[in-house]
């Protein structure tokens, strides 16, 4: 059973993970995905608690699940609907709607890379661990994701020299 270390990790990491997942799977599913990941962590706590960074483990699990959720839903509009029905429309913030629509065009890897980098503050190397891919691939996702966002937000893309700042 989980111990105080698990509770401490949960309370520290859960809010951040939910915010990152809101960009990846939408606000409706974010808490479910995060909870599922922590439940898996809870089940594996005896082993994972000995890892150097259990938080990375749970983030990796969440991202796998997020990919699965996205794959099942298949329609990016579902993610968008979740947003537009929630925060964006309620607040009538046009720029947010533009951003949500633009995010909806990104692949799940691009969306994850953008979320983890720009919301979570993780470096390309760390994101590569979470997404289980090479650092260069993360930069690819980041570059293409930001390029798409820039085009769709009618702004020129920036050159990505180094994704890492975390």
């Amino acid at each position, binding site marked *: 059973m989980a111990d105080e270390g698990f509770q401490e990790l949960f309370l520290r990491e859960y809010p951040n993970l939910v915010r990152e997942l809101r960009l990846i799977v939408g606000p409706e599913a974010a808490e479910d995905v995060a909870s599922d990941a922590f439940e898996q962590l809870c089940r594996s706590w005896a082993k994972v608690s000995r890892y150097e960074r259990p938080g990375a483990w749970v983030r990796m699990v969440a991202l796998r699940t997020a990919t699965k959720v996205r794959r099942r839903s298949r329609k990016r509009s579902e993610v968008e609907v979740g947003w537009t029905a929630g925060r964006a429309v309620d607040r009538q913030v046009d720029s947010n709607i533009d951003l949500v629509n633009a995010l909806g065009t990104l692949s799940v890897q691009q969306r994850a890379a953008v979320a983890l980098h720009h919301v979570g503050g993780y470096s390309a190397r760390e994101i590569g661990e979470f997404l289980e891919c090479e650092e260069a*691939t993360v930069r690819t996702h980041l570059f293409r994701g930001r390029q798409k966002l820039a085009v769709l937000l009618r702004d020129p893309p920036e050159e990505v020299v180094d994704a890492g700042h975390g």
Partner: protein
Amino acid sequence: MPGTDELADRLGALVGGPVDAESAYARLMRRHRLRRLRRAGLGLTAAAAVAVGVLVAVPDERDSKRVDVVDDGGDRDEVPAVAQGERSRTILRFGSQGISITSGDREMSVWPGAVSAAFPDHMGGIVFQEVDAGPIRWLADLSNPSGTSTVAPPGALLHAVIERDGQEEVFFTRRSGEGESSTETLFSYSLLDQTVTEMVDTGGSESGLDAVAAMPDGQLVLSTCHLQCTVWTQEKYQDFATAEPLIPPDWIAGLDIAAETIAYVRYTFTPDSGTTTDPVLVIADLSGETLHEVPLPMTSESGGAMVDLDGDAQRVIVSIPNDGGSGVTSVLVDNVFDVEGRSIETLGEVGAAFGGSIDPFAADCTTPDCPAPTGALGDRELEYAFLRDGATWARTTDGEEVRLTDGTVEASDGFPLVLADGHTIVHSVASFDGVFDRVVATDARDGSSRELPLAGTGLLALSPDTTRIAATRYTDESGATVELVVLDSTTFAEVANVPIGVEDEVGPIQRAAWNGDGASLLVTTRCCYAPEGATQADRLWSVDLPGNSATELQTGSEGTIWIVADRASDENTIPALQLADGSLTWGSLRVAATSVTFDPCCPLPNELDGSMDGYLDLSERADGRWLVSDGRNLFELDTAGTLRRVIEHATNASSRPTR
């Protein structure tokens, strides 16, 4: 322009709503505790079972309060056609043969014994009752039928499983007392806490509960019957002598509520014969006002029904007892709110319910310690190859989509080509700066992948006779030259190399189209470093392979992007999509010695997204149609410009070679 910091600020503002971690932690602990019990094969403790057992032990008398009816076999012409279409959603089936779960063509038996009622819980398990008012059981782990736990011993009657207020509740009734003094009581059993709660008395000797559901706010809704049935909110039911019911007394049966919608079945009562006939599915709002009535294609002597409304209230499963009292027949009514699109599908002579969160066919592998499974086609024939979420996929000729790789093969770039053998899929992988890192070949028969010795090569198009592949490379020296190379499709040896121009001037090759004789190609390039404010446009080149030369063609269409097909349809006529001023037009490019002209056919519908032209692709099929990929979906396109989506969420795709 949002720079790095500004983008972070905007994204942060978008997702920065409050997160209640304390409550989430409490919920998680409750779930975790439950799952531990499930894994241990525990459910109701012995003490709790005894507690339920001593409540009452009187056989169910519900049938006595119902009116026996005989179906008049009346005209059913108004009933929509019964369609035996593909059922892709998960459906729970139960009856004398036990419980099975179906999804599409797949079926899995999960319980062998005869069952009178079954409901999915919201955690992937099933609550069911054995026939003849047998025990109510909870099958929490579908892979372990011997691990059921007892919710209630024999003599109870299972009505529903409802998730409300964070609890998973099983509702059942029991009778106590004998004869005219008997009473019926509704109980709730919490799957999470394994506790039983007595809810409310629901009937006397000739009355009782038919169905229970819950309003969106969690308030129970009861359908209680004495000859006719009346639907009450729990609050009003406490005061039923004077309160207004939600649905007044009528010849109704079954009840479910979802997405602010109420569904039940209403029969027609004929006083002269004392029979009820012609079941109609009623769709109502939460005030009880009827919105739709759907005649059902069944008959029933007993007049009962079970109704299961899907979560979004678009579909309903209705199970009605068969004439003669043996078994039930179920139908699925789809698109209940859409009169034109509504359909009724027979599910057979079984009880049925939506599977909810049950998904025994899904791969359950999400931890890093468990490698994601992959599939393979074996001897099945490949029709399309496509990329989805970083993995290579194939679709068979019978429509099944199979993930071939686990995503470690970075399939995020390049358009897959299916080689002449019909099962080898090759595609290029590009790094973030657009350089082609490597080429990966995947065998769809067994899902194996290997890297080909083609680093720096971007594959473009398979030749009409399938023996060669057009590709692009750059020379390594400063001021790199863009080259069109031709590879043998079997050995991957380079058989031709035609310089197009200096990269900084012409840009990379975007697409290549083979002419019919395989001796020349049309190539498009686009300079990726267009000055700010300048409109990016494609340049077109005719590549003569025997002459080893490239000639730029005049298009007369400035500011246009061309998505050319992989091969010509006729001599010097190449199907193409023209992207100009944000609109896509389907037509043909006619290639002359030094110029091309575009013959437009028709604008394409809006569902084809041309906003990210880098993801657009066009290739030919054997049947006179074309395959269009827009980076999100794969469409078939006919000569009249009609699109039909065939694969969803496919980043890039192609079909097997056609000639």
